[in-house]
C-alpha cells in the first residue's frame, strides 16, 4: 500500500509541475460528397453580451467534421431568425438547405440560458427544441451537447461530439525528447496534461466508464503499465514485469485488462483481473502476440501475431480458448480495434509500402482501405462508430488524422509544435 501511495504522490507532483497545454487544431482534408446541407444561423445574443464562444460556429464545426453534414457558409444565409416562428421555410429551400438550426443566448443568473431549435426545411416542422443552462466555462460543452442532439435527431445515431481524446506528444530529439500524455475535447481543444516524462509514453486506453486511463510509461527506464484516475490524478502501477509490459486494453465491463507481457519469454497475451491483481495467460507460442482488443460483447480478444511468419490479426475465443486467424489480405495487418457494433474491425494494413487505416467486415472478410496516407498507426474508434482517429505523418511531423467509417470524409489534428500520436477516443462520458 505504501508503494502505491508513493506512486500517487509522484503523479500529483507531476501534475503540479505540468502547466503545459497542447491543443490541437482541425484541418478538414476531405469532405464527403454525400454530406447533408444544413444552415446554422448565428445565435441571437441578448443585449450587448460578448460571449466567450460562438455557439453556432462550434456546432457548425462539429457537424462539418463528422463528414455527414455540409453547413452553409454564413455569407449564404438569407436571413437570421432566432426562433422557429420567424422562419420562412421557402427561403431555406431556395438555398437547398435540408435542415435549419436557430437559437438564442440570454442571461440567466451569473450564466446563460441557451435555447435552440432544429427545423426540417422540406417537412416544415420543428424536430427539436430545448433550453440549456450554461456558464462561461461550460458554453463550449453546451454547444457540443447541442451538436450531439442535432446529429442524433437527423442520423438516428448518438452523437460523439461531447467525448474526449487522449494522445501522446513528443518534442525535441535524441536524449532531450520530452513526452506528454494529454486529454482534450474531441475537437482538440481544452487539452490537459496528464503526465510528463523524458521517457516514452504509449498506448493510452480509456476505461469503459471514462474515469481512468491505462498506459505504458518508461519513466523508470523500464516499461510498466499504469492506471491513472483522471479526476484525482491518483494512479497505481499495474504491472512492471521484466521485459515488455505493453498494449493495455480494458474489458467492456472494466474489470480486466488484456495486455502483452514477455516475462515468460516471448510477448504473450495475458488478462489481468484489476481488483484481484491476478493474471491469466491466454497465448503460448514462440511468436509475437500483442495489441489485444476486446470485442464489445466481451467474448473475444483480437490480437496481432506473427505466428504465421508475418503480422496478422487473430481472434481468441474466451469460452473455448480457440485461436483463429481472421485477416488474409496482404502480408501486414496489425493493431485491430472493434467497431462498437462488433461487426467490423479497424486495423493498420500494409499495401505496397503504405501503412494505412483499413476496415474489415467480420462476416465477409472483405478489407477496405480508408486512408491515402503512408505511415498510419494506432486507429481508435469513436464510441458511436462514426469515425476513426489515428496517428499519421505530415511532412516530418506526427499528426492525428480522423476518417469517417465509410472513408468518405477526413480531417487532421496537428499540434502547434512537436509530434502528436497514440490517440485514444474516449467512451461516451454522459
Amino acid at each position, binding site marked *: 500500500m505504501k508503494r502505491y501511495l508513493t506512486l500517487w504522490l509522484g503523479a500529483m*507532483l507531476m501534475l503540479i509541475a505540468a502547466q503545459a497545454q497542447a491543443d490541437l487544431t482541425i484541418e478538414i482534408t476531405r469532405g464527403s460528397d454525400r454530406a447533408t446541407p444544413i444552415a446554422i444561423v448565428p445565435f441571437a445574443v441578448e443585449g450587448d453580451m460578448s460571449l466567450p464562444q460562438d455557439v453556432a460556429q462550434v456546432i457548425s464545426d462539429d457537424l462539418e467534421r463528422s463528414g455527414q453534414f455540409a453547413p452553409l457558409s454564413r455569407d449564404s444565409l438569407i436571413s437570421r431568425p432566432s426562433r422557429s416562428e420567424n422562419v420562412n421555410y421557402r427561403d431555406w429551400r431556395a438555398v437547398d438547405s435540408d435542415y435549419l438550426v436557430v437559437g438564442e443566448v440570454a442571461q440567466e443568473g451569473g450564466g446563460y440560458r441557451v435555447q435552440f431549435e432544429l427545423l426540417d426545411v422540406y417537412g416544415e416542422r420543428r424536430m427539436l427544441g430545448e433550453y440549456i443552462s450554461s456558464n462561461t466555462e461550460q458554453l463550449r460543452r453546451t454547444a457540443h451537447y447541442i451538436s450531439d442532439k442535432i446529429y442524433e435527431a437527423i442520423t438516428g445515431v448518438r452523437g460523439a461530439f461531447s467525448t474526449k481524446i487522449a494522445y501522446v506528444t513528443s518534442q525535441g530529439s535524441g536524449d532531450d525528447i520530452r513526452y506528454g500524455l494529454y486529454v482534450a475535447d474531441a475537437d482538440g481543444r481544452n487539452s490537459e496534461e496528464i503526465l510528463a*516524462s523524458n521517457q516514452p509514453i*504509449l498506448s493510452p486506453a480509456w476505461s469503459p466508464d471514462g474515469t481512468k486511463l491505462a498506459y505504458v510509461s*518508461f519513466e*523508470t527506464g523500464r516499461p510498466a503499465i499504469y492506471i491513472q484516475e483522471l479526476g484525482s490524478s491518483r494512479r497505481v502501477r499495474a504491472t512492471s514485469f521484466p521485459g*515488455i509490459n505493453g498494449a493495455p486494453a480494458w474489458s467492456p465491463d472494466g474489470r480486466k485488462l488484456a495486455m502483452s507481457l514477455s516475462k515468460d519469454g516471448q510477448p504473450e497475451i495475458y488478462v489481468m483481473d484489476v481488483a484481484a491483481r491476478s493474471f491469466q495467460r491466454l497465448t503460448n507460442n514462440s511468436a509475437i502476440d500483442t495489441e489485444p482488443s476486446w470485442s464489445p460483447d466481451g467474448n473475444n480478444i483480437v490480437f496481432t501475431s506473427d505466428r504465421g511468419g508475418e503480422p496478422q490479426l487473430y481472434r481468441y475465443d474466451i469460452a473455448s480458448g480457440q485461436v483463429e486467424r481472421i485477416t488474409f489480405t496482404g502480408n501486414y495487418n496489425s493493431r485491430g480495434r472493434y467497431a462498437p457494433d462488433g461487426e467490423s474491425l479497424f486495423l493498420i494494413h500494409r499495401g505496397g509500402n503504405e*501503412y494505412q487505416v483499413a476496415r474489415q467486415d467480420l462476416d465477409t472478410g472483405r478489407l477496405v482501405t480508408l486512408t491515402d496516407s503512408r*505511415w498510419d498507426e494506432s486507429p481508435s474508434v469513436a464510441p458511436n462508430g462514426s469515425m476513426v482517429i489515428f496517428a499519421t505523418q505530415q511532412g516530418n511531423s506526427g499528426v492525428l488524422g480522423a476518417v469517417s467509417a465509410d472513408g468518405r470524409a477526413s480531417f487532421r489534428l496537428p499540434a502547434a509544435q512537436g509530434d502528436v500520436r497514440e490517440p485514444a477516443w474516449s467512451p461516451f462520458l454522459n
Partner: protein
Amino acid sequence: MQFKPYAKSLAVALSFAFVAGCASSGGTQDGALDGTAGSGTGTSTTGQGMASGQQSGTAMQAGQQGRIPDVRTIYFDFDSDQIRSEFQPVLTAHARYLSNNGNAKVVLEGHTDERGTREYNVALGERRAKAVERFLTVQGVSPSQFEIVSYGEERPAVRGHGEDTYAQNRRVVFSY
C-alpha cells in the same frame, strides 16, 4: 518518475521542466556513478551510423579490467533480427569485457524504425535485443549481467523518413 538529480550540463538541466529520470542511453549504468558517467549523448542526430552511447564517459569502476568497448550500437536489416557479420566483432568485444568484469552490467536497448504499429515494434525491438543476448550467452556471459529494454520506435536515433534514416534506427544499443 524518479527524481534523481542528474549531473548533465546546467543548460540541459534548466531546459527541462523537471530534472529527472535516466536517459535511455549512455547514462544508466547500474551501481550509479555520481557524475562520472555524465553521458555525452544527445548526439544521436549525427548521422554517422554511430548513434547513441558512443560518447559516454568510460565509467570505469574500481576493479574492472579493460575498457567498455567504444562501439556500442549495432544495426539490423529491415524486418530482421539477424546479427550482421560485420557486427560480430563488436559483440565479441562486449562479451569479453562482460566476462572479464563480472560486476559490469549492461542494458540491451532494442529499437526499430518507424514503420508499422508501435506495440508490435516494441516486440520487434525486443527480438533484436534477444538475438544479441543469445550471442553473448553463447560466448559465456552470465545472464545476470544484462537486461533487455525494448523501445520499439519510441526513441529514434534519427528523425525523418527514408531508408537511410530507417537503417540508423534499427539498432541495439549497449547501455552500460
